[in-house]
């Protein structure tokens, strides 16, 4: 690869990284995240946020170019200089920003960017003040950029364990609120692994986690993977099913004891994850299976919640503060009410779906968004106060108790959620592999072709809306009984978008994807409080990034993957064309050897 090309790439990556670093600093993330220790007091989440931009731009700056469908070899010297350069630029851009803040009159920048505090500047200059700290910042950037670029030079058999080891260590550090109580309940002393004062991993603990995970990776790729395949592959299908069943049982047992081990606060987070998982599963049917982008999904969540409250009994607060029963209320047992709620919400789904079926995808999205907003305004309006309690919402929703055993506490509630989630996952799986699921995927890929093959698109679209509504309303049901009251402000468009982000991040149409998406987007912010403030910001960024970089999601649906892989050949073709156009200096054949 010619030097000038590499330099340009490095400068670009450096400028992008610098902009990213300045941005996270201005939003206040660096400062807020700095109080979370990851490894000793040596690495905080804030430090990580400063370290990632130069590291990644060094990595990106040395991205090997693909010419003629083949990767160009990377010259070691080129990689080193490009990494160094881009990292230094990241540091330089940030240093320039810090210098600007210092040069301008006191408070001038802070008047607009309210998060620019002396504390933040202190973190960015490593506590050394302006002239020295700025030089340090540039050097720091350059070193990390060098590391990022140098990572490319490692052969795969070293790079893979190192990468996985780092990722595992980071995961352990981030899950610092889960692992210590878990291990403690299991009777293990964790003080050597997690520091009781700093909360993060201890330095020896981090080294150990890194060594073990990297070692296991090496072992797995040299021996384990082959051995497992050797054992499993010749097994007849029924035996393999037994193996799968054993794995499922182990997971089930782990989930059953989990809330007892982690305590009630974390169980509450898990309950929250479950509620959103149900919504994600429901939306996955509509968006992932049938390909109908529904932005008003919160309407079903609201319907489920309010119907559950009205069917099982609840009170509303009047304007003078009295508690009275809503204008319509039944006093059914929760487990009788649920099927009723499902049926009614499914009908609502059909009613909402029927008029908008013929709209094209993006219009459908906007109309459903309109429905969602209508639902929000209606439940909060004074007009329907008799039923919904208006802005005050409903209270005293009957508990989902079975014979005196209540589910209101976080730990029992988790079991209730678990049952519902397992049911929903079962339904989703069965639907995906059924005639209906195949009709949906045919419709999703090409509506005209599906219709020509005899798939009644009207029927299957309505069915998708009904099924999606039915699964989604369960989350509303659980939401209503979770704390026994419904706050009218809980049904904003942001719920719809959060659920959409879950489905998109995980991978449309993929149930493991929905689970991973929910854990990342709901579970992680629940565990680390400082994420909470930036939750929606991160969702937005995640939606853009996943669509641009990995549209199939983190854990893609197998069938979709196959469809995307078929396009790969076409993409290589396209790349070739792009190369020929953009770089006339490079002959296509010249860089082909790798």
């Amino acid at each position, binding site marked *: 690869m010619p030097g000038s090309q590499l330099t340009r790439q490095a400068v670009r990556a450096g400028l992008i990284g610098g902009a990213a670093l300045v941005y996270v600093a201005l939003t206040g993330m660096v400062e807020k995240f700095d109080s979370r220790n990851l490894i000793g007091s040596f690495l905080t989440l804030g430090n990580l946020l400063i370290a990632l931009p130069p590291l990644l731009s060094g990595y990106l700056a040395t991205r090997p170019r693909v010419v003629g469908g083949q990767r160009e070899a990377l010259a070691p010297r080129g990689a080193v200089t490009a990494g160094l350069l881009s990292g230094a630029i990241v540091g330089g851009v940030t240093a320039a920003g810090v210098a600007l803040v210092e040069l301008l009159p006191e408070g001038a920048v802070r*008047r607009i960017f309210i998060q620019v505090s002396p504390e933040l500047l202190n973190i960015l200059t490593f506590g050394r003040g302006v002239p020295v700290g700025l030089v340090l910042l540039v050097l720091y950037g350059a070193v990390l950029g060098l590391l990022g670029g140098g990572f490319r030079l490692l052969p795969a058999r070293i790079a893979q364990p190192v990468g996985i080891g780092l990722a595992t260590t980071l995961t352990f550090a981030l899950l610092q609120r889960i692992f210590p109580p878990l291990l403690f309940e299991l009777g293990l002393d964790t003080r050597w692994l997690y520091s009781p004062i700093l909360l993060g991993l201890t330095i020896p603990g981090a080294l150990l986690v890194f060594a073990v995970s990297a070692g296991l990776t090496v072992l797995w790729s040299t021996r384990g993977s082959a051995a497992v395949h050797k054992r499993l592959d010749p097994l007849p299908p029924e035996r393999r099913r037994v193996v799968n069943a054993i794995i499922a049982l182990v997971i089930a047992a782990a989930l059953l004891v989990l809330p007892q081990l982690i305590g009630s606060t974390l169980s509450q987070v898990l309950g929250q994850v479950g509620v959103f998982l149900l919504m994600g599963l429901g939306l996955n049917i509509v968006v992932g299976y049938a390909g109908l982008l529904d932005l008003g999904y919160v309407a079903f969540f609201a319907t489920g919640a309010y119907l559950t409250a009205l069917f099982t009994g609840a009170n509303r607060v009047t304007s003078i503060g009295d508690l009275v029963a809503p204008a319509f209320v039944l006093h059914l047992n929760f487990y009788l009410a649920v099927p009723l709620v499902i049926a009614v919400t499914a009908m609502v789904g059909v*009613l909402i779906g029927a*008029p908008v079926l013929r709209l*094209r995808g993006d219009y459908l999205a906007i109309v459903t968004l309109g429905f969602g907003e209508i639902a929000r305004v*209606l439940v909060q309006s004074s*007009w329907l106060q008799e039923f919904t309690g208006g802005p005050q919402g409903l209270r005293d929703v009957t508990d989902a108790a079975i014979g005196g055993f209540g589910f209101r506490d976080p730990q029992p509630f988790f079991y209730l959620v678990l049952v519902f989630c397992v049911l929903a996952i079962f339904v989703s799986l069965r639907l995906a592999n059924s005639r209906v699921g195949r009709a949906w995927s045919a419709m999703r890929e090409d509506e*005209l072709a599906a219709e020509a093959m005899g798939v009644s698109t009207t029927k299957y679209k309505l069915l998708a809306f009904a099924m999606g509504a039915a699964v989604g309303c369960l989350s509303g049901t659980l939401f209503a009984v979770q704390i026994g009251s419904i706050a009218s402000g809980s049904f904003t468009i942001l719920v719809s978008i959060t659920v959409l982000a879950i489905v998109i991040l995980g991978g449309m149409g993929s149930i493991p994807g929905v689970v991973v998406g929910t854990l990342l987007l709901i579970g992680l912010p629940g565990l680390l409080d400082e994420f909470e403030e930036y939750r929606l910001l991160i969702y*937005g960024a995640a939606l853009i990034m996943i*669509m641009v970089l990995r549209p199939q999601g983190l854990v893609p649906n197998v069938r979709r993957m196959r469809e995307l892989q078929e396009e790969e050949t076409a993409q290589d073709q396209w790349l070739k064309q792009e190369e020929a156009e953009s770089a006339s200096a490079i002959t296509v054949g010249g860089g082909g050897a790798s």
Partner: protein
Amino acid sequence: MTTQTRPSGDEETGTSSRPWTAVLAERVPVRRIILVALGIFITVGVVLGSFKTLTLQEGRISAAGWRDFLIAGIALGSIYALIALGYSLVYGILLMINFAHGEVFMMGAFASFYVAESLDSAGMLDRNPVLSILILLVTATIASMAVAVLLERVAYRPLRNAPRLVPLITAIGASLFLQYSAASLFGSNSKGYPDIAALDGEWKILGIPIAKVLVVTIVTAAVMMAALTWFITRTRTGKAMRAVAEDKEIASLMGINVNRVIVTTFAVGGFLAGVAGVMFALVFGLVQYNMGFIPGIKAFTAAVLGGIGSVTGAAVGALILGVVESVAPVLLLSGFHVPAPNQLRDVVAFSILVLVLIFRPGGIFGSGEPERG
């Protein structure tokens, strides 16, 4: 469709073996029945509601009251129009809904807010209001254009040939990202926009007293729309934009730089959104990070109502929406004794969106054919 019984030719078409429910489902036009019922229900509701409100015994609204609603509606409509044009222009060229356009508007309002504060503390706002407003407009438009162009570059250009839903999803992500970036960068509380003394009070126009700020809003919007029409119909760039909207590939064969035209379109949309941002801030007197979301969706509604892709359509649709939103809740609902009908103005606007898309997806100036595919 005249009979519900099975036609005799079933054996030939092979439907005789199908269950009767399937046959029934095809014979009964469920969709049409729902549509017709919905249409009748709405018409009856509108007529009955307006009749009851206008003949209300007590709490009847005076003619002057209705006039004020109307004028406020027109002013609101002209702000919507400026935003709606941005949606319409982008849709016309890329066939995508720039969901984050409301945030482009918000960023413009924020930029002008900080300048307005400085001007206010320097006493400029009172000394030279016309120049101040011009400065505010320039800052807001620059900021909005920058955000719009950046948005195109980062979130939309890499996905230009992706399936249609993909850019819509990034647009939603961008909307969320920009909104909460603003919340983190500038703070999430609402900020009071400095008051321009010269815009307080009313002018009498044709004997009707109208708040000065509303007059300025309506006039500015009208000037902007005239300028846009001139830009699109008379300039070389405008011609290129129309050509790209017609057919990207052929336009590029004719030597038009399609990328540049698309960027220009986003910039023009951003420019108008910036102007709208200043107007909105002047009328409502505050800026907040989420101020762009609802006006954005409403402006989109207006664009759809008028016929998306059409400049006149966006303007007319926005005026209609502004007036309907301002008048309809009171007119239709107070007759039924609905408490606090103004709470439901968003419902009115979104219902219009839903109804237009159901009954006439092409909009007023569109073809009227339901789009699909």
